[in-house]
C-alpha cells in the first residue's frame, strides 16, 4: 500500500501564495515538519478563520483535497492544492490570502501503486481530477503521457500543470473536440498491453475509463471521490460499493483498483461531483 502516515491531529499551515489558473485556484501552504505524501494521497483542509457562518451557514466539516505537488523538501516543504470553487468550502479556500492559516490533516489514504511489471503509466484526468496525476507524474517521469479532459478553454489552462499532455475539451476550444475517453480508446487500441491506467476525474468520466479499461483488459487505478466528514476512517460516511461490499474510501482509497469496483454504482453516491 502506498501510504505515508500523517502526524496525529490537525496542524496549522501558513498560506504562502495563491494563484489563479484559468477556472482553478492553486493554494500553496508551507508545512514545516510535515511528511512527504505519496502521490494520490489527500489532505483534509479547513480555513482557520471564517470556516462557516454567514448567510450560507456552511462549511462546518473539513474538505478533502488531493495533493497536487510537494515542492522543496523536509523540513520545510510546500504543499500545493488545486481547487475548483463548487460550493461554500472550496469557495472559502479559494479566497485564502498569503499569510492566512489553513488547518490540515494528512497525508491520508492510499496513493497510487507503481505500474505492474512490463507496463508503463498512462495518466487520464478530468477537470480538477488532474491534481493527483501531476504529483504522480513528478515522481514517475515527466515523459509519462497524460490525457486530460476539460469543459472548455478556461478549464484547460489547468493542463499547464502537467508535462506531455494531450487535451480534449467538451466544446472543442482546445485540443480534441470530445471526451478524454476518446483519446484513451485510441491509446488502448494501439498499445493497451503495455499500459496501466491512472485516472481521476468526475464520476461519469471515471466510470467510462473503468469500462474502457475492462473492455481492453488493461489494469487501472482510479482515484475516486465521495463525501467525507473525517478522512481517517472514523465516520464510515465515505463508503463506495466494491466487490467486497462497502469500503471506506478514505481508508481503502481514494485510489482503488478498477477490478474492485462494481460499475457505475461505485461513482453514484459520491455526493461531490464536479
Amino acid at each position, binding site marked *: 500500500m502506498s501510504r505515508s502516515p500523517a502526524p496525529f491531529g490537525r496542524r496549522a499551515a501558513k498560506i504562502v501564495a495563491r494563484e489563479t489558473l484559468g477556472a482553478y485556484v492553486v493554494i500553496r501552504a508551507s508545512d514545516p515538519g510535515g511528511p512527504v505524501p505519496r502521490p494520490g494521497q489527500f489532505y483534509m483542509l479547513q480555513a482557520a478563520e471564517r470556516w462557516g457562518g454567514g448567510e450560507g451557514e456552511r462549511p462546518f466539516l473539513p474538505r478533502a483535497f488531493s495533493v497536487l505537488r510537494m515542492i522543496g523538501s523536509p523540513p520545510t516543504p510546500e504543499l500545493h492544492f488545486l481547487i475548483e470553487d463548487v460550493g461554500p468550502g472550496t469557495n472559502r479556500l479559494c479566497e485564502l490570502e498569503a499569510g492566512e492559516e489553513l488547518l490540515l490533516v494528512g497525508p491520508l489514504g492510499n496513493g497510487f501503486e507503481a505500474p505492474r511489471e512490463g507496463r508503463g503509466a498512462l495518466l487520464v484526468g478530468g477537470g480538477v481530477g488532474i491534481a493527483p496525476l501531476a504529483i504522480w507524474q513528478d515522481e514517475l517521469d515527466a515523459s509519462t503521457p497524460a490525457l486530460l479532459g476539460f469543459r472548455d478553454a478556461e478549464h484547460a489552462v489547468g493542463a499547464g500543470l502537467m508535462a506531455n499532455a494531450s487535451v480534449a475539451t467538451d466544446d472543442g476550444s482546445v485540443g480534441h473536440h470530445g471526451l478524454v475517453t476518446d483519446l484513451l480508446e485510441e491509446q488502448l487500441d494501439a498499445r493497451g498491453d503495455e499500459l496501466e491506467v491512472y485516472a481521476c476525474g468526475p464520476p461519469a468520466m471515471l466510470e467510462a475509463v473503468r469500462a474502457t479499461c475492462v473492455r481492453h483488459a488493461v489494469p487501472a487505478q482510479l482515484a475516486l471521490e465521495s463525501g467525507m*466528514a473525517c478522512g481517517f476512517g472514523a465516520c464510515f460516511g465515505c463508503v463506495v460499493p466494491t466487490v467486497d461490499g462497502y469500503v471506506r474510501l478514505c481508508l481503502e482509497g481514494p485510489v482503488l483498483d478498477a477490478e474492485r469496483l462494481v460499475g457505475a454504482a461505485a461513482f453514484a453516491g459520491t455526493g461531490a461531483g464536479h
Partner: protein
Amino acid sequence: MSVEFCGLELVHPIINASGTFDAIAAGRAFGEELIERFPFAAFVSKTVTLQPRQGNPPPRLWELAGGLINSIGLPNQGLRGYLQHDLPELARLPVPLIVNVMGSSRDQVAELVAAFGERAEVAALELNVSCPNVETGLLMGADPAEIAALLDRVRPLTSKPLIVKLTPNATDVPAVARAAQGAGADAVSLINTLRGMALDPRTGRPWLGGVTGGVSGAAVRAVALAQVHAVAQAVEIPIVGMGGVASGADALDLMRAGATLVAVGTESFRDPAAGLRVASELAELAANSAV
C-alpha cells in the same frame, strides 16, 4: 484530572462517542503517534450487533450549519468478526475498552452482553437502545418499562459495568434513565443523535441513502445540555454526557449539569486530536473554577 467511573480509573474525563472514532483505522492513518498520544481516557467501540451489517447505502452524510446528519446504519462485522479481528487489536490500546452493543430483541442483547461479559479485554459495556424491539415494536430506549425489562434480562449476565445509552428522541428521558437505574444499570450516557433529514435540492428527494439520519455536532449542544441536566436530577448513577462538545467549555457545561465523563463525537471529524484538546482546555478551566 483523573476520575473514577464505575470502578474504572481514568486519566481524565474525556472519552469518545461511539461510532465517531475508529482506533484501528486511525492507527493506519496516524501510525504509532496515535497510541503515544491517545486522545481519550477510555475507548468506546462503534456499535456491535450479533450479525454483520453492511450499513446504509450512500450518501451517508449531510452537512448542516454547525452539524452533521449521518445515516451510517451501524455497519460492523458482527459479534464473531469483532471478537476475532477487532478485540485483539483494541486490547493493545493504552486505555480501557468499552464495547457498545445493540440488538433488536432482548435475547440478542443478552447474547452480546454474555459474550463480551466474559472477555477480560472489555472493561465495560454500553447498550445502544436507539432501536425498536422487534418483539414489542417499541423503541427500546423510549419506554421505561421496556428498558427495565431489558435490564432485568441482561443485568444478571455480567458483573462488568453496564452503561445504558439513552435515545434523545423520547418524551421523558429522565423516566427512562430512572428505570435503567432501578433495574441495575451502572451508568447512563446521552445524547445519541436527534432524528433529522435533508432533501437533495436538485431533486427534492431525500438526500441520505437511509432517508432519515441522526443530527450531531454543535447544533445539538443545547438539547444535550438540557437532557443531561434533567437526567442528573432523576438518577444517582454516573452520567456520560455528550452532544456537540467541541471545547473544554462545552465539556465543563455538561459536567456542571451533572456528567461524570464527557464524550467527544463529531468534533473529532474536524480535529482528530479533539479529545486531547478538550481534555486540556477542561483541565485549565477546572483549575480556575469550581466544577
